[in-house]
C-alpha cells in the first residue's frame, strides 16, 4: 500500500531498485540526449497556424525551426491576375485584424505609380487615417488580449475583445462588412462616413479608454504577468535593426522608427501624437509600447474628429474614379467608362514603386511593378509578420518551452499576413 510505504522504498522504486547513495554521479543525472518536439501547426497558443520543431534539452530550447506556410493563399499570384481594384479584397485577408491599413497601403502604392499621391481629397485622406487608426487599435487590442489570455488572464481577453467588437461594429457601419472591409479605393474611399459617425466614435473611444485603464490595473502590477513577460525574448537594438524588425517590436528595443513620423504620409504631419520607445526589447516592453500606442491612436482619432474637413471623398480623375451611378444608367459614355473600369481595370502606367505605411505591426509595404495594363505585373507585399517571425528562432532559443507562448503572442504573428 502506497500510503504505508516508507520513503526509502519509494526511492528504490523510482531509481530502479537502487538507493540514491549507490549511484555514480553520471547515473544520477537525467539522460543528456536532446529531444525533438513538434509545436503546432495546430496549437492553441500558436496564433494562426505555424509549426515549430523544437529541439529541447530538458525544458530549455536549444533550437527552434519555425515553419510557416500553412496559410499560404497565393496573394501575389492571384494579384497578378486581378485588376488593381480587385486586389483590395485580397489585401483584406493579409492582416485580417487590421484590414483597413492593408487597404490604405495598397491604394497608396497604386496612387504612387499613377502620380496621384498629392491629389487625393483631404476628406478622403482624413477618412483613411481614421479607419486606419481604428484598425491599429483593433490590432493591438487583439494582440494584447490574446497574449494575456494565454498567460491566464482571461478577463483581459474578454474586456479587449468586447472593446474590439465596438470598433468592428463601427467599421461595419462605415463599410458594410465587419471584418473584410474593402473600403478604400484607388483615389479615395468608396463612400462617405455615415451620419453621426463622429459622435459615435467619440463615445466609443471614451468607453475604450475606460477599458484600457481597467486592463492596466489588472496587468501592469500583476506578478504572474510580469514574471512571464519581463526579461523574456529580449532583443538588442542592433539585432532588431539587422533582422528587419519594425513597429512595436523595434520600438520596444529602442529603435526610434515610425513611418508616420520618419517618412510622413497622408495627413499625419497635421496631427499631434507621440511615438513610444522603450529600451530593453523584452516582452513586457512590447506590451507597454502597444498599450501606449493604443492611447496615442485614440489621441489621433480625437483630433481627426475635430479637424475632418468636408468635400469630396474621391479624386476627380476619370482614370480612377467610377462615374456617378446616375450617369452610368443614363448616358452611354459613362456606361462605357464604367464597363471599362470594371472589366479592364484601372490603367496604371508602366513602372515600379515601393510604398510603405505604418501598419499595426510596423512597416507594411507594397512593391508593385506595372506594365500599363489593368493588372499588376508583380505585386509583392513586405509583410512585417513574416520578417518578425524569422526572428522567432533567435528569440526563443535559450528560453523554456513555456516562454514560447508570451514570445509568440508579443511577436503578434498574423497568419494571413505572414504566409501571404
Amino acid at each position, binding site marked *: 500500500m502506497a500510503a504505508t510505504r516508507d520513503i526509502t522504498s519509494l526511492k528504490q522504486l523510482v531509481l530502479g531498485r537502487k538507493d540514491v547513495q549507490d549511484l555514480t554521479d553520471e547515473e544520477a543525472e537525467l539522460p543528456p540526449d536532446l529531444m525533438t518536439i513538434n509545436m503546432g501547426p495546430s496549437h492553441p497558443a500558436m496564433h494562426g497556424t505555424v509549426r515549430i520543431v523544437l529541439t529541447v534539452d530538458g525544458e530549455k530550447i536549444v533550437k527552434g525551426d519555425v515553419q510557416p*506556410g500553412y496559410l499560404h493563399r497565393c496573394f501575389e499570384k492571384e494579384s*497578378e491576375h486581378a485588376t488593381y481594384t480587385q486586389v483590395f479584397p485580397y489585401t483584406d485577408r493579409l492582416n485580417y485584424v487590421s484590414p483597413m491599413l492593408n487597404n490604405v497601403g495598397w491604394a497608396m502604392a497604386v496612387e504612387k505609380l499613377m502620380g496621384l499621391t498629392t491629389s487625393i481629397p483631404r476628406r478622403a485622406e482624413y477618412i483613411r487615417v481614421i479607419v486606419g487608426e481604428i484598425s491599429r487599435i483593433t490590432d493591438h487590442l487583439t494582440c494584447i488580449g490574446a497574449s494575456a489570455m494565454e498567460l491566464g488572464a482571461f478577463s483581459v481577453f474578454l474586456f479587449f475583445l468586447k472593446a474590439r467588437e465596438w470598433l468592428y461594429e463601427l467599421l461595419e457601419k462605415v463599410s458594410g462588412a465587419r471584418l473584410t472591409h474593402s473600403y478604400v479605393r484607388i483615389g479615395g474611399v468608396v463612400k462617405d462616413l455615415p451620419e453621426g459617425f463622429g459622435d459615435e466614435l467619440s463615445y466609443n473611444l471614451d468607453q475604450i479608454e475606460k477599458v484600457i485603464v481597467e486592463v492596466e490595473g489588472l496587468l501592469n502590477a500583476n506578478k504572474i504577468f510580469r514574471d512571464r513577460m519581463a526579461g523574456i525574448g529580449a532583443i538588442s537594438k542592433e539585432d532588431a535593426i*539587422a533582422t*528587419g524588425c519594425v513597429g512595436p517590436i523595434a520600438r520596444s528595443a529602442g529603435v526610434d522608427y515610425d513611418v508616420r513620423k520618419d*517618412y510622413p504620409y497622408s495627413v499625419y504631419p497635421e496631427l499631434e501624437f507621440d511615438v513610444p520607445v522603450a529600451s530593453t526589447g523584452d516582452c513586457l516592453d512590447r506590451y507597454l509600447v502597444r498599450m501606449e500606442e493604443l492611447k496615442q491612436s485614440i489621441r489621433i482619432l480625437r483630433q481627426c474628429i475635430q479637424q475632418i474637413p468636408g468635400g469630396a471623398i474621391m479624386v476627380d480623375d476619370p482614370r480612377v474614379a467610377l462615374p456617378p451611378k446616375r450617369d452610368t444608367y443614363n448616358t452611354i459614355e459613362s456606361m462605357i467608362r464604367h464597363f471599362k473600369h470594371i472589366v479592364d481595370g484601372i490603367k496604371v502606367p508602366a513602372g515600379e514603386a515601393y510604398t510603405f505605411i505604418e501598419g499595426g505591426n510596423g512597416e507594411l509595404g507594397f512593391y508593385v511593378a506595372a*506594365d500599363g495594363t489593368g493588372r499588376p*505585373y508583380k505585386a509583392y507585399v513586405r509583410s512585417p509578420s*513574416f520578417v518578425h517571425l*524569422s526572428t522567432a528562432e533567435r528569440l526563443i532559443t535559450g528560453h523554456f518551452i513555456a516562454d514560447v507562448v508570451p514570445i509568440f503572442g508579443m511577436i503578434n504573428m498574423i497568419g494571413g499576413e505572414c504566409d501571404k
Partner: protein
Amino acid sequence: MSQKVLDALKATHGGAIDHTESQLGDEIAWVKRESLLAVATWLKNDPAMLFDAPVFATAIDRLDWRPVGVPLVQHWNETKPRFEMAWQLRSQKHRHRVRIKCALPEHDARCPSLSGLWPAFNWQERETFDMYGIHFDGHPDLRRIYLYEEFVGYPLRKDYPKEKRQPLVRRDDLPINPIKAADREHK
C-alpha cells in the same frame, strides 16, 4: 531623395554598377552580379551610407514583360536576362533608402546571398528561392519556406499556370468533376 547615394556608388564602385535610375522617388542601382557582395558590404559599413536595416528582397520574372506604351526595345526577349533580384535597404541613421538590383539569366539563375550581411534576408531569400527558383550562393539554409519539399516547379514564375494544382495527397475517394478533369487534361 537619395540621389547622393547613387552618386557615391558610381564614384566609388563605377565599374561594378551597370546603371542607376530613379523611379517615382525610389533610387535603384543595378549592380553586376560578380561584385554584388563587395558593393553590399560597402553600403552596409561605409559611415556615409550605413544601410543597416534590410527592408525586403524579392525577384521579378520578366518573361511576359511587354509594357503598354513603352518602346519595343525595352520589351523582354530571349537575349535579355529573364530574372532580376531586388534588395531594398534602409539606413536607420541617415534615413535614406536604396534598392540594389541584379540581373540574372534564365539558365544561370543564381547570385550571392546577402543574408550574411543582413540576417532578415535569410527568410526572404528562401521565399524567393521557393517562388522563383533563384539559387543563393552562400545561403546557410536554402530550402522551401511556404511550399512543401515535394512541390515541383516555382509558382511565381510567369510560365507556371495559375490554375495548376499539385495536391500533396491524392483523394481518389472524392467524386470526379468531369469538366474540371477535362480542363486539367487540357493543361
